């Protein structure tokens, strides 16, 4: 009798000890550092506090092709780190069963500062964004019920969900929050340009690059604003309508006539790595982009007024301006981010 009682007392101790091992929630906070040259973040960190294990789980999910209907197309399939998480060499994305989407894959970097996602701003919360590619029939064509079943049967997911979240549940909420934690942590802030802006060592720009920065400030920052190089607005920058797709852009979301053919002003960070350019990947080079602004801007009812000032279409750019601009744009390439092992699949 006495030994029994003793056992009963001791037993819970054992249980809690074994619980303490690998399989309990590990609240190791992950700091989100805001570089001094960045604007304040927009992400709600209180609703989804970043932890080391949440990040780890998110990374595993990001690179797991088993979430897709064909077992192959992961988020990382289209978003490749070496190309600033874009799909190198593809104008339009292509996913499961070679289904072709209607848009070019944008980069994943500094998403915690954005107010909306996708070229048309279809969603405003980073944690919910993955629902779009995950369920899209021409991207991952995924099914939550199947994905959850797969993860519940997988030993490493069983463990990761337990250590990443206090309630340890393998469900859509935790899956999305983990992906959100991983993506919001993908920061690019250490290009030569950033170091120049923060007066850090290694932050020297050549004379040509500095001149390019001056041209950029004069002609581009009205839309590509702040050191993140976007004002998060939607605008029509005068691209000829691609009739094969007839992508109406922001109009799809708002159904407001003024938003027809308006697209989100993209960040230009790591731009030298993200060709092809624009929402449909129509331009293969930065030269082509600059030629568009200089001579290719098409007038239309919704063309942004900044691109038709003084009865003139587009932005006046001399050949020297273009060379200097491109030299400048190459300074925002951040090798540290492009090669950071913390973000890579292997």
């Amino acid at each position, binding site marked *: 009798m006495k030994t029994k009682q003793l056992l009963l007392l001791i037993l819970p101790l054992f249980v809690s000890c074994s619980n303490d091992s690998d399989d309990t929630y590990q609240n190791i906070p992950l700091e989100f550092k805001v570089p001094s040259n960045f604007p304040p973040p927009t992400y*709600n960190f209180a609703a*989804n506090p970043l932890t080391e294990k949440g990040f780890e789980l998110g990374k595993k999910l990001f690179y797991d092709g088993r979430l897709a209907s064909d077992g192959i197309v992961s988020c990382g399939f289209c978003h490749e780190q070496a190309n600033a998480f874009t799909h190198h060499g593809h104008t339009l994305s292509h996913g499961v069963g070679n289904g072709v989407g209607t848009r070019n894959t944008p980069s994943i970097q500094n998403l915690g500062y954005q107010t909306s996602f996708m070229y048309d701003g*279809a969603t405003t919360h980073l944690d919910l964004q*993955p629902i*779009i590619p995950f369920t899209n029939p021409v991207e991952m064509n995924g099914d939550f*019920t199947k994905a*959850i079943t797969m993860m519940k049967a997988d030993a490493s997911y069983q463990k990761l969900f337990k250590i990443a979240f206090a309630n340890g549940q393998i469900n*859509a909420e935790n899956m999305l929050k983990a992906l959100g934690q991983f993506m919001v942590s993908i920061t690019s802030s250490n290009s030569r340009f950033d170091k120049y802006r923060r007066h850090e060592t290694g932050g020297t720009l050549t004379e040509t690059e500095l001149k390019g920065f001056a041209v950029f400030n004069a002609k581009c920052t009205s839309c590509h604003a702040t050191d993140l190089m976007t004002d998060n607005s939607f605008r029509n920058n005068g691209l000829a309508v691609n009739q094969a797709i007839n992508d109406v852009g922001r109009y799809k*979301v708002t*159904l407001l006539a003024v938003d027809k053919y308006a697209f989100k002003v993209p960040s230009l960070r790591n731009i030298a790595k993200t060709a092809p350019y624009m929402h449909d990947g129509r331009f293969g080079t930065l030269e082509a982009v600059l030629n568009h602004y200089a001579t290719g801007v098409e007038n239309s009812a919704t063309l942004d007024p900044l691109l038709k000032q003084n009865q003139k279409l587009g932005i006046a750019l001399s050949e020297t301006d273009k060379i200097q601009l491109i030299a400048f744009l190459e300074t925002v390439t951040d090798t540290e981010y492009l090669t950071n092992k913390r973000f890579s699949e292997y």
Partner: protein
Amino acid sequence: MKNALHKAIAILAVSALVISCSKDDNEVITGTGNLGIEFDNAFGTNDLILNTQANTTSNNEVLKISNIKYIISNIVLTKEDGTIFTYPKSESYFIIDEADPTSVVAELENVPAGNYTKVKFGIGVDQAQWELGATGQGDLATRAQAAGMLWSWSAGYKFVVFEGTFTSATVTDSTPFMVHTGQTATDYNYTEVTLDLPTKAMVRTTISPEIHVVSDVSKIIDGTYKIKLSDNNMGGMGAMIMGGTNLPLITANLNGMFTVAHVHND
């Protein structure tokens, strides 16, 4: 005198009984119980029959309905003394689907015992939840995708899905219609309704009342605001109402869609 004493004793005894009885009553109302809210879809005064039954609106459009589904959320119960019980938000999401008989009762658990006189619920997913992102959604995305209620292209939810075919004086061939409500860039399209219960729902550890709600789905397009499907038949491809100025009107119509027919207390 003796008689009077007897009487007094008798009165005392009876009143003691009464007091203890009412005391007992009070004591019974402790603990928690279950409560069901059944959503019984109807079209006007008729029961709703999917696919085959023709239903006529006040605009003389004839509808055959193939799908009616909606998300119920944010359930709040009011007791007879005015106290309020808010069902845990993340557990309050129910997808009601006429085609799935197992889905039409929202089963609430751990409801404090008491006599309830009012029920309030939302149709859709509210803005506060939206702004929190995935936090608090539990397995909602999974259930919604399985039920076809995920508004995938915008990572949101369809709040109401109302689909079928229709004919009218101007549209003589049977033509599809689809009404989907949900958040758009211009309107949130979430709404809440409060219903008085005709008799109290007496939740006890031993009694699980069921509130029988009749949902008159004709009201979706034929309520305070009358929306003609024929006017929305774009290029003859069908009436697709999934955005634009009609959605807030449809959302307003939802307020008149629900009534409580009766409450079972057993």
